[in-house]
């Protein structure tokens, strides 16, 4: 199938109008030696029927978690997405539009982004939020770079080991090339960041302390204490969140004086999509806004005195500021943010709290059910929202694979990132996990051990 509206006749007319004898003439500007003499070694074009067949076949060879009892989280969560999201996002007006550079014909996207920004401010308790970044990991790297710009003379970054390992790795990759040192702080036995170690690590040369809460292992950090320690030493504090639904139950970071809240908002209306696209977010205080990376939408008036919305503070951005921009980001995750805005509008105030309550209740129930099997241990005693680590006493990967055959994906085997946690599985629970699924998990896991 070719997506070429011009018929052969029209194409010829166009060539004639241009004044070339053949289409090849148009490419004469490319040196002959560089021009291909044979077709690309790819199959010929296929019809819709055939392409759909191939893709359906590949999809069939991939199981969606909805066909399983899945307890996978670890930074990507299987939440209920109301039908409004899919229905609205499939409007061509949203998904086939470009970046709203011409605001007069982009008010739809602009307003949706403005609403999204507002919602993220409310959720995080921060004063401003941008219109999206790529994902949680790269957003975390952006937050660190932002701190580095703000704290010009400081060149150390302190990061908790409770941060998602892929986020930690991403920050390391980003900073490799820059004169910034990274110091990591271990966890204590309860699974939360060791406060003494953190206080020791953070000094006058530290630009920012980064911690995740709930952290990668599901443990809720003492944000108040970390924020206090940071404030004391005039260090910025950045909190990472990968499960934003936790904010339906936990106090907003803004209330503790966090300077930057950053992370992954996939939970809000975005499908799992085998890992992406997701929705990196960043929120901060008003006084840091000029150092914020990424796009910002602002409210203004038009020449008829009507309210309207535009891209603003773009002197931070690369298309104006080039090498001095706050980030190189251009294309972001606008549609994912639009989905989040639709999701948060539909679920709304009451829903976000209720979903959080369900998630927590399911996790608590699962914790008890697993405990009752008498076959597992819980390495961490710290409080959790909807995710915790289970020590199954055997290689976690093997156990997960075993249960997969029973249509249960028990969780994420931590051995992938932590060889020392060979027997540990990270399990997450959402409102979509039924009691029956959890009971089956406990029974089958018990049976397998």
């Amino acid at each position, binding site marked *: 199938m070719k997506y070429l509206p011009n018929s052969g006749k029209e194409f010829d007319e166009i060539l004639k109008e241009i004044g070339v004898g053949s289409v090849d003439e148009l490419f004469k*500007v490319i040196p002959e030696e560089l021009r291909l003499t044979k077709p690309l070694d790819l199959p010929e074009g296929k019809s819709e029927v055939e392409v759909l067949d191939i893709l359906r076949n590949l999809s069939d060879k991939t199981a969606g978690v909805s066909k399983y009892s899945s307890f996978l989280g670890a930074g*990507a969560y299987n939440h209920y997405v109301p039908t409004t999201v899919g229905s609205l996002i499939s409007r061509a007006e949203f998904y086939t539009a470009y970046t709203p550079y011409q605001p007069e014909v982009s008010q739809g996207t602009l307003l949706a982004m403005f609403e999204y920004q507002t919602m993220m401010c409310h959720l995080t308790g921060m004063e401003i939020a941008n219109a999206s970044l790529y994902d949680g990991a790269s957003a975390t790297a952006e937050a660190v770079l932002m701190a580095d710009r703000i704290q010009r003379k400081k060149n150390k970054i302190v990061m908790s080991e409770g941060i998602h390992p892929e986020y930690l790795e991403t920050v390391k990759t980003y900073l490799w090339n820059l004169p910034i040192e990274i110091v990591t702080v271990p966890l204590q036995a309860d699974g939360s960041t060791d406060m003494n170690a953190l206080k020791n690590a953070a000094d006058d040369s530290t630009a920012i302390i980064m911690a995740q809460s709930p952290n990668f292992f599901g443990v809720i950090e003492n944000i108040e204490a970390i924020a206090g320690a940071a404030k004391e030493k005039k260090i910025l504090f950045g909190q990472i969140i990968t499960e934003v639904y936790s904010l339906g139950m936990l106090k907003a970071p803004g209330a503790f004086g966090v300077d930057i809240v950053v992370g992954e908002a996939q939970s809000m209306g975005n499908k799992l999509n085998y890992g992406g696209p997701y929705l990196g977010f960043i929120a901060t205080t008003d006084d840091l806004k000029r150092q914020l990376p990424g796009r910002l939408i602002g409210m203004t008036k038009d020449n008829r005195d009507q309210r309207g919305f535009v891209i603003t503070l773009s002197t931070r951005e690369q298309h104006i500021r080039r090498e001095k921009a706050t980030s190189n980001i251009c294309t972001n995750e606008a549609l994912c943010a639009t989905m989040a805005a639709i999701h948060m509008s*539909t679920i709304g105030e009451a829903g976000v709290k209720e979903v959080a309550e369900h998630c927590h209740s399911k996790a608590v129930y699962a914790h008890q059910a697993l405990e009752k099997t008498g076959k597992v241990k819980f390495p961490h005693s710290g409080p959790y929202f909807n995710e915790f680590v289970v020590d199954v006493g055997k290689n976690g990967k093997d156990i997960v694979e075993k249960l997969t055959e029973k249509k249960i994906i028990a969780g994420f085997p931590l051995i992938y990132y932590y060889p020392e946690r060979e027997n540990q599985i990270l399990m997450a629970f959402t409102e979509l996990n039924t009691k029956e699924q959890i009971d089956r998990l406990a029974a089958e896991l018990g049976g397998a051990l």
Partner: protein
Amino acid sequence: MIKGMRGLSFKEDLIFEKSREGAKGYSLPKLDVPKADPAKTIDKKFLREGKIGLPEVSEVDVIRHFTKISLWNYAVDYGLYPLGSCTMKYNPKINEITSSLPGFADAHPYQPYSISQGALELMYNLEKALMEITGFSRVSLHPAAGAHGELVGMMLIRRYLEDQGNPRKKVLIPDSAHGTNPASAAICGYEAVELKSNSEGMLSLSDLEAALDKDVAALMLTNPNTLGVFEKNIKKICEMVHKVGGQVYMDGANMNALMGIMKPGKSGVDVLHLNLHKTFSTPHGGGGPGSGPVAVAKHLAPYIPKPVIEKNDKGEFYLDYNPEKSIGRVRSFNSNFAILVRAYTYILSCGSDGLKESTEHAVANANYIRKKLSKYYDLPYETSTLHEIIFSDKIQEKFGVTTKDIAKRLLDLGYHPPTIYFPLIVHGALMIEPTESESKQELDGFIEAMIQIAQEAEKEPEKCTEAPHNTVVGRLDEVTAARTPILKWEPEKE
């Protein structure tokens, strides 16, 4: 036929203004486990109290709100969207179907390989296809967008040079380059050095020669460049850069001018990024998500971000989390996978023949516009161009009508304007890229509109300077927006 006219539109409040206490747009299954009291395990001071501040509205409110505001957008599905460099081609509907197949949409990135073979195979095949299209040795699908690809590309170069003993200091970038190029170089710890374009709109070999030294880590070159001009000296340029030990990075945003015609990997370039959301027809979504795979020559292949997709002896696909020389992770999980599905679908649909023809039609369409409009608008560079064409407002400026006015007037006439004021080296640039998705009919409508504007500029300039007239909002005050930024909604204080 010029498309724009006036019709019925609808006012709409913000969703927050529609919020009414107690209104609900969702319902959950009844909680089937005991309701846990969070205060039992979590210190109360960490628990949220009071309102979050999210809207309280019903399903019908949500549907109508977003449906109505969607109508305030212009979209590719409405018509020509000739943004130069952005390649707003038509997004085939099949892509939306394949990318939302349940096996793809509901797959968790950490689910066992045994139940992910289809997704992995797709990524594997897509890498292979992109290697063939670009002529490179390896492709990484990680980058989430073009700029991310640039950054990754520069990181690869830096790590490679480091392994050669010296990461070096400078990156040379022509003044016609996209803003992301210098920004990406900077984040990678390099100093961006600007190179002037010559009168043909190309990189001047002598200027390049002058700028090249042992501190040069790389040249970042867009080809065809943002003037639509093919850097015909590309081979020579690569040789020159390589000679001083530098690497050549090619910004592949304009691959729509080359697919099936030439392979950048065979022209001496070391690394290239693609914008799947341009060349490979994935929708732009009002600014994303995109995907910016990076294609590299052999010597850079060991450095690509982890995890990498591999196939074992049994033909099973898996992710290698620890390739020895990888620069490391540049994001979480594997890729903007749902975008990859769309691009792969597109490649299968078009096939070898279709990709090449797409390029041909894209270039022909651009040259048709060039031919038709060059009587009315100033052409700052005479050089032949490929898939896009840059005019300036030089002629109209004399009557007090600027590029911005032309753009706003186009809105009234029902067309999205071209990219404006870019590339920066052209004063008042109008950068037009029609793509292959446009029929002659649609192009003729646009040409007619542009000609009308040229005439209006002369005879009734206020029609342009006061435009747009037809849109739901008039010209927006961007200055005030930036001076006293209002970045979130707050209830009006009375």
